[in-house]
């Protein structure tokens, strides 16, 4: 059994994620829960869940690295690192040739250009506008009376794509209702919505300058409709990891391991302030 373990916590505004790795950087356990407005509780929940899954006690956890929106308020963290750096690290760990990361989360999206060695070169974030985030799709799923999880398949199977011209989530919702009233088919609308999200993200990616290979992370990467449209628009294949939502937490955990290895003697699990 591994001497010690490291936990990465990615506490986002929509979901809280935890990844537990061993002292060689191998992922042992992961957990995802809705944040539901409770940053501390959801962080604690996912942390306990990965420890339970891995059958690991508190004492064996040598470091806890936090990232995401709630990274600074977790009391027993060793260090907090921004989600930009953590997503880059997690992507590089998963596939070392990756040069570009597109992360579309619940309430924000980011595009990150990596150097050849996996370090962050440049990045852009959208956290002002819901269009181009998971929130956009959530709102539309509700409007269409379908499940968020159904959208991807629906979009892929549709041979028609409705044109959604509104760039704003609120106005797009009204537009969708009009389209339904006009008799547009739901799958065609869903395909149109996936294209709309992809077009928003394309803008964000272009501001940084896309360099392949590209990895897509975040919950929206599970939507095949968006992945297909984004790939078509960017004219590049997108690599989607098996668990796209935990890349940030994975990166955080790996950075925790690197921190431990840099300080050769054992480090206390301390709360570090900048």
């Amino acid at each position: 059994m591994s001497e010690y373990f490291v936990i990465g916590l990615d506490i986002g505004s929509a979901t809280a994620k935890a990844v537990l790795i061993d002292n060689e950087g191998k992922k042992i356990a992961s957990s995802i829960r809705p944040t539901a407005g409770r940053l501390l509780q959801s962080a604690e929940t996912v942390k306990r869940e990965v420890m339970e899954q891995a059958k690991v006690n508190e004492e064996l956890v040598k470091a806890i690295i936090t990232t995401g929106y709630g990274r600074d308020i977790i009391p027993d963290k060793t260090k907090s690192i921004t989600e930009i750096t953590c997503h880059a690290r997690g992507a590089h760990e998963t596939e070392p040739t990756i040069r570009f990361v597109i992360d579309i989360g619940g309430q924000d999206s980011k595009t990150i250009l990596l150097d050849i060695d996996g370090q962050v070169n440049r990045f852009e974030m959208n956290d002002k506008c819901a269009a181009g985030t998971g929130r956009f799709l959530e709102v539309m799923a509700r409007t269409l009376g379908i499940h968020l999880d159904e959208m991807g398949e629906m979009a892929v199977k549709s041979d028609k794509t409705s044109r959604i011209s509104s760039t704003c989530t609120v106005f797009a919702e009204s537009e969708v209702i009009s389209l339904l009233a006009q008799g547009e088919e739901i799958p065609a609308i869903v395909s149109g919505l996936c294209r709309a999200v992809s077009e928003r993200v394309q803008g964000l990616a272009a501001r940084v300058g896309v360099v392949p290979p590209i990895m897509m992370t975040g919950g929206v990467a599970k939507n095949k409709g968006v992945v297909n449209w984004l790939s078509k628009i960017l004219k590049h294949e997108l690599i989607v990891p098996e668990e796209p939502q935990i890349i940030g937490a994975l990166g955080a955990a790996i950075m925790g391991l690197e921190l431990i290895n840099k300080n050769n003697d054992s480090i206390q699990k301390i709360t570090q302030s900048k």
Partner: protein
Amino acid sequence: MSLEVREFIKPFVSVSEDLYYFSKQAKKNGEMVAGFMCTYSPQELFHAAGYFPVRIIGKDGGTPLADQWLQPYACSFAKSVLNMGLSGDYPFLDLMVFSHTCDTMQNLADVWRRRVNGPPVIIVSTPNLSAGDLSLTYLKRELTRVKEEVEKISGNKIADDKLLNSINLYNKHRDNMKLLYDMRRKSPTLITGTEMFAIVLSSFVMKKEEHNKLLEELIQQLEKMAPENIAKPKILVGGSVCQAQGFIQTIESSGALVCDDDLCMGSRAYVIPSVPEGDPIEMLAQMYLLRIPCPAIHKPGYDPAGPYIDKIKAGNIDGVIFLQTKFCDPYGFNYPYLRKRLEQEGIPSLLLEVEQNQPVAESFHTRVEAFIETLSAK
């Protein structure tokens, strides 16, 4: 920094609690206060006429009154100042001075003149072309006109020797500030960027005589301090914000040191050079034309990247953060060129779009932290 030296910083920092404290005091004492918007305002002239010149800055909060009169794409700084004017938030002003710089400032001047119930307004028509004999002749004539208007409004004659004295006082102040900037370039840990900005901000709302005195005392103390080694990334902040306090504080609390700046309320306020003594109006015209221009002013042959590269080399700067006020076109026009030049020099930079009437957003904090993480990884 030792506790004793901290005492010399305190008077500067306390100004942030009530920016217009000294203006209001002056008013109570029966003195005249002149508000100005821009470093192209010939403050020396108003000072010589007996005014206490103070820089007009906006504040956090919505701008519903200003939104009536300014288009949505006017910057938040202009809107905030107009809103405060319309709300009567500058009751201590006896004179309001605008300068002809960017489009928004020009229009703000006219809107203010028509809509704000307040003191007389003077608009200084600074030439956009900041070089050559024609500009000099033009500015001399304009400054003469402004001088006559100020004399009429104030009821005070501006004698040549009075104006010369004011010019000398302001030159001394600029020299002191430039010295402080230089000291920080050589030894960035003397005072933090946040403290430096407090000194800069207070220089605009405190009497020059008083600020000079405090500066000289502080510089004396700092000269005794030994340089320290610093492990944090060193940042230069550039851009088009006036109230940069919150931003600089956030950058420094994210693990970096703001060692230098290229800000209007910052080093660019002290770039007005001294000129040989002569006719004071001629001197002023020379000074304000020879100075390093602001992005809204055109100076043939001037390279806006020059000051950046110089400061980066002088201070061993690790990275540049641009604070771009939304809708500030003049600075925005410079940015692509600045970024390219920095890239050529291998200097990482970050562009952040900011508003000047809102507290620092969480999103700002995250981007700054991420940028500093990339610098620390090098």
